[in-house]
């Protein structure tokens, strides 16, 4: 099997399959799900049967439906946040690399400051103060996450800025925006794409952690992290309910990592002898 002209390894195939299934579940959740995520259809903790494939939850909602809607929320939210953090991080990082020493020092020190604080605790404080609306959640995590994107994009851009075609553009008199958009960005895409996959995983886990702590997605919206939180006590009573969302989180993370590993390996094939 091949993708973009490169051979797919077995782990990459598994990873792509996982990612596609998850994305399909997220996109088509309203069509696939037999019930609504907030609809109470029976007794609490009813066992799985032909109608309720994974059983019912603490309020008698269908677990399978909630899993599908949870995918929609978790994956959609992570994607939005990762995209936003990349826009901020890439623009700031490139600007720091191109615009000169002072902007670089200013941005880098701000980023150092943000990085020196433990992310989860910092997010905790911010969300407690600002509230847990979705836009606030998105903005907070995106800004915290963009510090790491800034580091990478600045480093990548630094290597490109010293090349002569960028110097030629500067000498010609091109503006900052043109240099960033036309000279640097096209050449920085491969490492940034791989980083996008990794950052997506971290954001995904981060939202799950926040939801688990009660500061992420709020009920009645389903989300894998808050589902683990809501059902966690039942593990003591032999009910498998918390294991499904937990397993889904683990599986998607592993799947995305497989894909990212494969993408990274394309650009850095090891040396060998062919004698």
């Amino acid at each position, binding site marked *: 099997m091949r993708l973009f002209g*490169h051979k797919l390894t077995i782990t990459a195939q598994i990873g792509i399959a996982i990612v596609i299934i998850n994305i399909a579940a997220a996109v088509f959740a309203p069509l696939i799900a037999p019930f609504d995520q907030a609809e109470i259809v029976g007794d609490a903790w009813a066992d799985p049967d032909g109608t309720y494939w994974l059983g019912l939850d603490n309020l008698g909602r269908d677990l399978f439906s909630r899993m599908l809607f949870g995918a929609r929320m978790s994956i959609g939210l992570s994607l939005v946040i990762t995209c936003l953090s990349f826009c901020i991080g890439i623009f700031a990082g490139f600007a720091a690399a191109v615009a000169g020493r002072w902007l670089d020092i200013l941005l880098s020190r701000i980023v150092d400051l943000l990085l020196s604080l433990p992310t989860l605790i910092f997010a905790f404080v911010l969300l407690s103060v600002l509230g847990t609306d979705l836009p606030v959640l998105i903005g907070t995590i995106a800004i915290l996450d963009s510090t790491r994107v800034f580091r990478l994009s600045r480093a990548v851009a630094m290597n490109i800025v010293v*090349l002569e075609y960028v110097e030629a553009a*500067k000498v*010609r008199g091109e503006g900052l925006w043109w240099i960033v958009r036309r000279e640097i960005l096209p*050449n920085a895409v491969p490492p940034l794409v791989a980083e996008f996959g990794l950052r997506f995983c971290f954001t995904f886990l981060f939202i799950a952690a926040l939801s688990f702590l009660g500061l992420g997605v709020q009920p009645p919206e389903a989300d894998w992290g808050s589902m683990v939180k809501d059902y966690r006590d039942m593990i003591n009573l032999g009910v498998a309910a918390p294991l499904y969302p937990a397993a889904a989180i683990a599986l998607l993370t592993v799947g995305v990592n497989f894909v990212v590993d494969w993408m990274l390996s394309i650009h850095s094939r090891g040396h060998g*002898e*062919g*004698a």
Partner: protein
Amino acid sequence: MTTERRPPAEKRRAAGKHAPTERRLGEEILLVEGLCIEARSEHGPGPVLVDHISLSLRRGEVLGLIGESGAGKSTIGLATMGYTRNGCFISGGRIVFEGKDIRQMSSDERRKIRGRGVAYIAQSAAASFNPAMTLFQQVCEVPVRHGLMSMAEARTAAIQLFTELDLPNPATFGDRYPHQVSGGQLQRAMAAMAMAAKPDILVFDEPTTALDVTTQVEVLAAFRKLVREHGTAALYITHDLAVVAQIADRIMVLRHGKMVEVGDATQVLQNPVEEYTRRLVADRVESHTVVALRRPDEPPVLTIDRVDASYGNVIKVIDNVSVDVRRGDTLALVGESGSGKSTLARVVIGLLPRQKGDVRFCGESLPAHLHNRTKDQRRRIQMIYQMPDVALNPRQTLLEIVGRPVAFYFNRSREEVRARVIELLRQVELPESYLNRLPGELSGGQKQRVSIIRALAAEPDLIICDEVTSALDQLVGEEILKLLKRLQEELGIAYLFITHDLGTVKRIANKVAVMLKGRIVASGDTAEVFAPPYHPYTELLLSSVPEMRADWLDEVLAKRQSGPVNPLVEALR
């Protein structure tokens, strides 16, 4: 002639792992038969890099492998150690070393040969040494690793080799780290590293290409001495015929992975049989013609007036430099690396602000900072870079690369830009169909042509050419020089031509300025500067350019030891 040059038998190294009778000179040590190497990717088979090459190497013999880039010479050199670059595979033939085919060996057996049987000296010594280890550690590693010597023995042997290679303070030289020695010394240290395990064959892969001409002479002499005294067989890979003339007994000319010609060194250089070899040799001879003078009465396009510049206010890189460039002139700035010639170009462009003096363009003073210059001032000075690979954005098509200055400086419409780019492509003999190609799809010479038309697109009065031919093959570089000359005749542009290659200067420049340590030590018409009486540094530079006679190196060395040039130049440095 081979036997005459050989040193007496007692000078040869004592036998280590072999019986003395096996060590006779002239005995065949390496035999390569019908070697084929192909590049192969996961997309399927790629080009054939080496096509049915056969060669043999006898003990004490030096075989020069000559060819332009892509001729497969390095690939052959690596193959003698049973190694290929990533993505390449030996697809046929035999490589017999001491009676055994390397291709049939296990990877453990091959590893035993490397360093002990065949050792490799790479082009860039700086990239081949570990910066975190001392030279002793790295030179001694090979024999200790192969279990041939103890650390103490290896150290003694290393000191012996450093002495033979004329390195300063041989006893303590090895305690230094790679960054603490000069480029030429490091290259010799690498030869010591290769010699440490007393290999039967040395593979020299362009070992002097990255060095300055004056350094090249010393390093070349050290290599030759080493090879002769130890009676080691060697493959000497280079693109420079004059260099190989000094060291090789036999020469093999390669092109596109195929053998063109092989023979005795003097025969190949003086009476080449094949057309291709003749062109390579003829090119060297042609280089001694001087460009005719141009009208001297016009006012200068560029005046550099007593300019000083430095990096970080500490080291003065440009010291009181004054130069004039007139319309239609080609002024060559000549000097070794670190002489400040590229820095001077940066000062003219405005990337490095000058500290003192003035730079005037068509009579008006240019602001020191690039930021303060107007669009028109920027347009009229353009630059062509040394490495076309990094001078062109790999993700832009030729239409974008060349069209951008047209659109940027002249505000033309899309159709006009396209028409202008096509016209420019035609001027440098590139087909119109290249419009949508990326730089990666072009050859080195074609990329440099694109760099040239990117500069021309701005319709400048002055083009700064920074070592524009040094990254190119000899014949391709020659075409680029001819193209530049033709464009100058058509458009009357002035060139500020930065180069370290005196041959290039003689072919393109009518004026020369020789730079040493940030100062101009000699300047004037090419014919005058390069004719006696010389400035001593000019004489040193001129005498360091290898000539295609086998006895050239001996002559130069003899002259340097007796002549008055050396102390004067040492004092200048």
